[in-house]
């Protein structure tokens, strides 16, 4: 045991002496949380909007004010002519143009209908969809207000939409769990695979194998420090997202931390497996980054819902551990559910962990021969 502790201590020395490792361990997660939380926000706030008002009456003025004062938009320009639309989009600041037809107010009062066009910049499909949806909601709201006195005797159905668990549809709610999922698997797998291949490359692995340390002790000694540091990382990320974005953990924090430990363990064993198949550090980095980052971002349900993917991708994503962890962490953090609802996903992660351990032990033995 004493041999082992000395070995673990040495691994900590490696980590604390290498600024790059420290940065990857702690700098990148913090940066990712902030970047995803702020920059990649799916909410719109102060989106540029231009108005082409061909009518210039009281009603268009009111509607414009309502749109601008909603807080989602800011007016970039008032256009005078259709020809200006293209020009204003090309400048880039304007995401949508709202056009009131001539005699908008008069038509609305006399005929009960008038047309308004929303032209959005389709080169950014996400923003375009959001902007048009928001604008339409505001316009609907406006017509309701206008219509109420006139139409109070006809039947109207007014749906009232409420978002459970995330009432304001904040996208941090979606990103923080996703970022935790991504960061943990990346860092754990990357770090362990690199640290083990480094020993191979520098020839120190030979010396360790010849020493009285057992192979299992060598592996554990390399992995335990990363386990501890990754766990601290989870605490940091949770604290950061709580402090900066006010993201609460609705469910049991103990359950959440336990699930995180399981996921960390799974990622570490995956890292060991990667180290047994890669010849040098570059290869280990390459496999970890390319093999884990892209599938996790694209296929795990982090950003794009799995339900909307073609069936093939759905099947592919089934072998990705992050897919299950995202479900677990979202359930606990945002919905506040207990183990009852996530035991299947948890079981899958446990099985995957055991599978990776078994496979890497076998590979490790073959390499020794």
């Amino acid at each position, binding site marked *: 045991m*004493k*041999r082992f*502790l*000395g*070995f673990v*201590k*040495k691994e900590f*020395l*490696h980590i604390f*002496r*290498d600024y790059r490792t420290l940065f990857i361990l702690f700098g990148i997660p913090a940066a990712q949380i902030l970047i995803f939380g702020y920059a990649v926000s799916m909410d719109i706030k102060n989106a540029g909007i231009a108005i082409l008002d061909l009518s210039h009456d009281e009603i268009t003025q009111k509607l414009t004010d309502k749109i601008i004062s909603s807080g989602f938009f800011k007016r970039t320009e008032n256009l005078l002519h259709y020809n200006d639309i293209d020009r204003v989009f090309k400048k880039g600041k304007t995401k949508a143009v709202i056009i009131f037809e001539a005699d908008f107010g008069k038509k609305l009062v006399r005929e009960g209908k008038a047309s308004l066009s929303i032209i959005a910049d389709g080169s950014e499909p996400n923003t375009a969809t959001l902007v048009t949806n928001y604008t339409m909601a505001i316009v609907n709201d406006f017509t309701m207000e206008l219509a109420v006195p006139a139409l109070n005797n006809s039947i109207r159905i007014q749906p009232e939409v409420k978002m459970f668990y995330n009432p304001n549809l904040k996208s941090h709610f979606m990103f923080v769990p996703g970022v935790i999922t991504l960061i943990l698997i990346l860092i754990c797998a990357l770090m362990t695979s690199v640290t083990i291949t480094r020993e191979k490359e*520098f*020839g*120190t692995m*030979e*010396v*360790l*194998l*010849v*020493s*009285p*340390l*057992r192979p299992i002790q060598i592996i554990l000694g390399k992995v335990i420090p990363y386990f501890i540091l990754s766990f601290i990382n989870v605490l940091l990320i949770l604290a950061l997202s709580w402090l900066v974005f006010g993201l609460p953990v609705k469910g049991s924090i103990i359950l959440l931390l336990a699930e995180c430990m399981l996921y960390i363990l799974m990622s570490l064993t995956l890292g060991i497996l990667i180290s047994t198949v890669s010849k040098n550090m570059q290869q280990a980095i390459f496999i970890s980054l390319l093999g884990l980052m892209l599938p996790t971002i694209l296929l795990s349900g982090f950003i794009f819902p799995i339900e909307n993917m073609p069936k093939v991708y759905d099947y592919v994503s089934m072998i990705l551990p992050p897919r299950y962890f995202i479900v677990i962490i979202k359930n606990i953090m945002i919905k506040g559910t207990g183990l009852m609802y996530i035991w299947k996903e948890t079981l899958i992660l446990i099985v995957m962990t055991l599978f990776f351990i078994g496979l890497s032990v076998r590979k490790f033995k073959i390499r*020794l*021969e």
Partner: protein
Amino acid sequence: METHVITVKNLVKKFGSFVANDNLNFEVFGGEIFGFLGANGAGKTTTIRILSGLSKPTSGEVKVAGFDAYRQTEQIKKNIGYMCQKFSLYEDLTVKENIILYGGIYGLTKSLIKERIAELLAKLRFQEYENRIIADLPLGLRQKLAFSVAVLHEPKIVFLDEPTGGVDPITRRQFWEMIYETAARGITVFVTTHYMDEAEYCDRISIMSEGKIVALDTPENLKKQYNAATIEEVFIKIARPVSLHPHPPAPFS
């Protein structure tokens, strides 16, 4: 002196159909410097891996420090030291931290490690380097330190796998002085090298070719036997694979 610390009888190691070690027989005596020579790919590394408990023989009898290479690899590992051609200390740790690490791995007590550190640093005139990281040391010093660390726990045998690769002649000489001193303390030195002048320093040498031991004797006897002035000549005469010889060599007597 005449006790065997390594006994190898009919050792065969196969990888699939490839025979890396083909029926090896030799003994190494306690306290001797045993040179283990051979061209690249002759099977030296395979033998060293078996002797150091890293891999198991396919057949044959192998005993190292009195322990069986099939079943008692743990015991073997405790009784040997090892230094390989690739550098074996951690570059980002200090001299002292490296010594503490390896001392700890081999189960030395704290006080003993402390004692050894002081002893070692004094012997190597290393005191001012105690808290410097290895990456800052010149290669020669590192090699000497790696060797000292390999024998830190006073093993029965120390395996040196091309320990002097890439080292300047003066350091090489100093390194060999350390080897002599170690052997004089009773630690058996099992060394592989590509420098034939180093082979002359050994008590006995064996030469491997294509998985077989083709010569084993003292340097003096080998030179006489092959009618050569240096071991290098002996080596060139016998160590090259048969296929490379323009004419078949004279059969070994």
